[in-house]
């Protein structure tokens, strides 16, 4: 045999061996992190947060991942997810094992889970689906075989979902059972939201169309919105038929603790109340709209469902951090970065010049009446500025720049 053949044969054998070992490792890696499909003969068990309950056997369906029949049967659990109210199988339920994403259920609501790790007594399975309450179960309730996850329809109803929660701006609407009459400064107690859930859902849809989806018409063309800006929002509403916010027990109202316990992902919560009667003229009356910063994940505002322009103004506060530019009893601060209000005229002029705007458009916040209200703050956006008028107007360069920069920080 030629020596060169032996040499290259050795190299080739080395390569093949390496390839086999690496592929083995890779497939083993996949094996320990993902579930596999395997029908099981063990009796089905119903899992709920209360504990396991036997249920009638069901026909197992197709699973997203196929495994060979040589796998030990006691390593697998077939999870079936169903709607608790309708018993319909639930596809696309996200499953997390011990906090790690494992996969999602197939069209027939099934997913075959490979139990790995130190044993079944110390793992957790979490099932998540929009419109349903999350369910987290310790696996000491799980036995090899078939289990049923009963997902209760949630109080958080998706209206328009454009992507996963973690990469979207999540807006959640909450109904209020109170309204306000400014003519005699009385709070109106209602029997829930007038018209019930259907009316509320309709009001929410209309509100979204008139506000969040209407930005192209009222923002400055100098700072174009991202083409997919509408896809950067997910919208939900909260409805359980018994729990309502009270829009008029303080400036921004209050939201029941149940809501905060369930909704942890909200970037802005909007209390929507049916309508506002009369004209607000300051305390002791209650304002039409009010924003409460309230932290992170807890920001909320209240607004009347039939006042889209003022809603845009309030959303300017609540979501984008825009400042009022009218002169009155409100809060002023230079809101860096991308401000729409400056604490000095020079600062305003410098910023405007730096962005190619006319520095001479910088003007002091005032009521415009000689001897009237003035504040030591300056604004640039031309009138009608929606952060000035509230009930009408558009967002100028400064406000639009801030809106766009906020939207750009979200990458769906």
């Amino acid at each position, binding site marked *: *045999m030629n020596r060169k053949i032996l*040499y290259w*044969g*050795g*190299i080739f*054998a*080395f390569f093949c*061996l*390496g390839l086999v*070992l*690496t592929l*083995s*490792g*890779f497939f083993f*890696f*996949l094996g*320990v992190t993902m579930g596999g499909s395997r029908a099981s003969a063990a009796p089905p068990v119903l899992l709920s947060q209360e504990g396991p309950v036997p249920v009638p056997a069901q026909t197992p369906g197709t699973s997203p991942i196929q495994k060979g029949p040589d796998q030990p049967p006691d390593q697998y659990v077939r999870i079936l997810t169903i709607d608790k109210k309708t018993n319909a199988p639930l596809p696309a339920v996200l499953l*997390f094992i011990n906090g*790690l*994403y494992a996969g999602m259920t197939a069209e027939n609501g099934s997913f075959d889970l490979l139990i790995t790790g*130190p044993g079944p007594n*110390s793992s957790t399975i*979490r099932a*998540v689906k929009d419109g349903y309450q999350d369910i987290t179960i*310790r696996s000491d309730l799980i036995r090899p075989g078939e289990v049923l996850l009963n997902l209760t329809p949630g109080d958080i109803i998706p209206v328009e979902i454009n992507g996963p*929660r*973690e990469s979207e701006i999540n807006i959640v609407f909450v109904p209020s059972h109170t309204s306000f009459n400014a003519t005699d400064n009385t709070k109106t107690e209602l029997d829930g939201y007038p018209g019930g859930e259907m009316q509320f859902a309709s009001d929410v849809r209309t509100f979204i169309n008139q506000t969040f989806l209407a930005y192209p018409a009222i923002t400055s063309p100098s700072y174009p919105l991202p083409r997919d800006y509408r896809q950067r929002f997910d919208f939900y509403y909260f409805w359980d038929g018994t729990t309502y916010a009270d829009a008029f027990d303080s*400036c*921004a109202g209050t939201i029941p603790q149940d809501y905060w316990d369930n909704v*942890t*992902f909200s*970037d802005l919560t909007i209390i929507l109340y049916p309508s506002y009667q009369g*004209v*607000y*003229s300051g*305390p002791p*009356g209650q*304002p*039409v*709209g*009010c*924003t409460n*910063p309230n*932290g*992170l*994940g*807890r*920001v909320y505002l209240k607004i009347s469902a039939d006042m889209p322009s003022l809603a845009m103004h309030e959303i300017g506060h609540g979501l984008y*951090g825009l400042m*009022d530019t009218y002169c*009155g*009893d*409100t*809060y002023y601060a230079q*809101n860096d*970065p991308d401000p729409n209000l400056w604490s000095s005229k020079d600062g305003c002029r410098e910023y405007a010049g730096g962005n190619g705007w006319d520095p001479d458009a910088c003007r002091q916040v005032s009521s415009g009446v000689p001897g009237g209200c003035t504040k030591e703050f300056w604004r640039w956006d031309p009138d009608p500025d929606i952060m000035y*008028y*509230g009930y009408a107007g558009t967002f100028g360069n400064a406000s639009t720049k801030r809106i766009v920069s*906020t939207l750009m920080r*979200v990458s769906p």
Partner: protein
Amino acid sequence: MEIKKYAGFVLLLLLVYPAAAAVDNPYQKIAVISFSFADTGVNEISSEVRYGTAPNLDIQTGTINGLLLDSQHRTIDEFSIRDPRIQIGEGDGSGGGLTGDAQYSHNGEFGIIVPFIPDLRYVTLEDTATGATLATVDLSPAIAAFQQLYPQDPDMQSAQNTAVPNQSLMFDEILLVAGIMAMAVSGSAYYIVFLYRRTERILIVDDEKEIAEVFSLLLEKKGYVTMKANSGKECLLLLKAWWKRPDIILLDIMMSPMDGWETLEKIKSDPRSKMIPVLMLTGFTPTPDQAHRYGLCIDDYILKPVNAQGLYDAIGNVLERRRLIREAVRAAMRAGYEKETVCAYARLRRRVEVDKKLLGIISTASPGAESGRDASFKDIAAVNRELQSDQETLRQLQRKLEPVLSPFFPA
């Protein structure tokens, strides 16, 4: 060339890392912290770690900075919020514009929800205007409570030991490294065994390069791997390297300055090379004295000119004898005989075979001078006596080992 060199590794990374990333979803656990604020400052009311989805950290910008810190107080992530003490209320004023009602609360509560990132230990709030720290929350009790509920959660395991960021990923990485190491070790071992052990390596020692080349070609044609040394010194140098050590040495006698006999002495005096069979190769008949002195050391004696078949036969005989001896030793030991007895038999058998051949060669040669003839006769007689004695000993050993040796060495 460099691109080709690393292409395999890059491909492996491309295969492995998307899979690793796909199973890691950092937004499925959250830390929920409630604060109270008053003119005296901000205080933690409660903190909890739970399953859930956090809001987007990047949307708000405000005057309060939040820092997510690990156990060493290193920043993992940060966020910004607006001052929770200020609520802005407004409505339509009678003049057509807005009437504002900003309310500054002197005391109240607010909440922070952040994604639970592995290694997260502290959440700190700072006032960017003054640089003052408003509050620092130690999440350890909340993590411990969560850990008690869900002990196998990988983030909780990493919370116990910050040096282990993700247990399952760590396990995967160990697997991968172990696989690559196994690949390297087993591949190298296979390579060594295949090249150095599966095919017999023959060292040809001859100061005439052309002759060495001819022998080399003949042997390679037969499937042997050959090495060449053009002097005794070069041969000894080669034998020092264990990975180049041959299975057989073909040693020419007529070399200078170190001839074949001297080289043979040095080979056999070195414990690292003394077990290698040596076939002496020469165009001259050895003297009876040389046969007497070196017969014990050599495995065969080949007279030039030799045809290819003669060479193959000689090498084949040596290799076959070694194989038979190895098998006989194993069989004898299994049958309960001492290894030394069997080895002594094997050595004696080889010596008898070589001596017979040498005696045949030197007996047919005729020394010139009378005195030399007397000396030669004495040496031939000595070799003959030794041969007779060895044959007798061999017969005795063979009788003793007959049951086990007969399949390998028929009488």
